[in-house]
């Protein structure tokens, strides 16, 4: 057993698909929230397997894709400053800002380094006390606890040459914004399994109750999604607006209480601008005032940097599930992974990157609803 192979068994996949087809009396519009789930759906052809039963609408669950352009420009401004050692996860290196990206800055001599953890960045700050080390803290609730831990540790150890550039977003307010849109056609949700590993799924019970739509918390392997979709179709067919947990091997209703506590200790909820979507109230995190010394935007005075998006890129409608990537006139021509116009084409969790990798040579087949 190799930890994931068991969740990619083809025979089990066929059984789940057949089970779902038997249950479905119509084609349901469902949104898988997380970009990692989008990639699994497209890569393994699950949307094709179940095309009679579901019309998947890809959600905004790609934290790289929704990082606002002005945050990228602020990152570039900080990284370009002399004496700064700028650190980030690898997936942010090629996300385009208004003029350039971090990888290009690195090529031009800026000290930009890829790390696997914010605590790796903190170790660099201890190792190089004469440098200002910054970590680009981007992500949903999944990566926030480790970032909170790095700031908490920095304060405990009195490390002053460390800060984080925060761009954390929260899933439930984004789902609320999707459901509150009068054009919303989503009838049920596949909730993000790794976010719920940290936060639990109590908030989704409130959403289900308020908007009368069902949620199933699902994992990321093909069998996870197939089982999750089967559970969701069962709820939809029976008219139940409830929450189910398919990813029970990792997710508890209350989530990880230790991780949630450190989030509360270090961060507070704030309004957040989502790239391509706009401001969603209460959908972000910022450092609490007692940790403001570790806020890179304040330390380097870049809060006033603003930006405006490319007119050609339709990342916004794609992230909101209103358009598919292949409906973009720039898809695969002007916009490719090598020369992206927007983040969804760069990120491993971006819908545009998923379609480019696995579907760009296929013709769109119209399907009667």
């Amino acid at each position, binding site marked *: 057993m*190799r930890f994931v192979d068991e*969740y990619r068994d083809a025979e089990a996949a066929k059984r789940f698909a057949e089970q779902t087809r038997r249950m479905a009396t119509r084609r349901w519009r469902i949104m898988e929230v997380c970009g990692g789930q989008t990639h699994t759906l497209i890569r393994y052809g699950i949307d094709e397997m179940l095309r009679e039963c579901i019309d998947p609408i890809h959600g905004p669950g790609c934290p790289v894709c929704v990082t606002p352009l002005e945050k990228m420009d602020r990152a570039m401004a900080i990284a370009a400053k002399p004496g700064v050692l700028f650190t980030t996860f690898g997936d942010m290196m090629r996300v385009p800002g208004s003029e350039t990206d971090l990888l290009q800055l690195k090529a031009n001599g800026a000290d930009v380094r890829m790390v696997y953890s914010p605590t790796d960045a903190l170790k660099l700050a201890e190792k190089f006390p004469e440098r200002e080390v910054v970590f680009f803290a981007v992500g949903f609730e*999944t*990566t926030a*606890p480790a970032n909170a831990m790095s700031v908490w540790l920095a304060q405990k150890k009195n490390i002053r040459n460390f800060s984080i550039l925060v761009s954390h977003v929260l899933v439930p307010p984004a789902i609320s914004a999707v459901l509150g849109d009068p054009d919303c056609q989503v009838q049920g949700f596949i909730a993000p399994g790794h976010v719920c590993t940290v936060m639990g799924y109590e908030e989704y019970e409130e959403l289900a109750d308020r908007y009368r739509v069902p949620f199933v918390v699902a994992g990321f392997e093909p069998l996870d999604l197939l089982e999750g979709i089967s559970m969701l179709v069962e709820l939809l067919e029976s008219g139940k607006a409830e929450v189910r947990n398919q990813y029970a*091997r*990792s997710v508890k209703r209350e989530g*990880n209480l230790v991780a949630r506590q450190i989030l509360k200790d270090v961060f507070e909820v704030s309004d957040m601008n989502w790239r391509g979507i706009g401001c969603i109230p209460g959908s972000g995190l910022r450092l609490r005032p007692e940790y403001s010394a570790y806020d890179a935007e304040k330390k380097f005075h870049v809060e006033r940097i603003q930006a405006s998006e490319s007119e050609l890129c339709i990342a916004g409608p794609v992230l909101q599930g209103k358009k598919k990537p292949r409906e973009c006139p720039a898809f695969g021509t002007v916009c490719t992974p090598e020369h992206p116009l927007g983040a969804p084409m760069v990120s491993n969790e971006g819908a545009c990157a998923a379609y480019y990798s696995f579907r760009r040579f296929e013709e769109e087949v119209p399907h009667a609803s």
Partner: protein
Amino acid sequence: MISRDILFEAKIVRIDHESIPVCGWVESNGVQLAVDLSFLSNLAEGTRVLVCGRTALSTVEETHEICR
């Protein structure tokens, strides 16, 4: 390039109870990695965990019915 969302499952092979925060080493597919275990409790060697970057975010149940 690390993908923040590709959390992976691994098995704890060693725990350093003296470190702050509590750290350990996990193994997945023959590769060992040092991770932060401070978000988890009641740990033991051999426990399966879900890892994000270098942080273990949850323990993982041993078996799952869908795979049988």
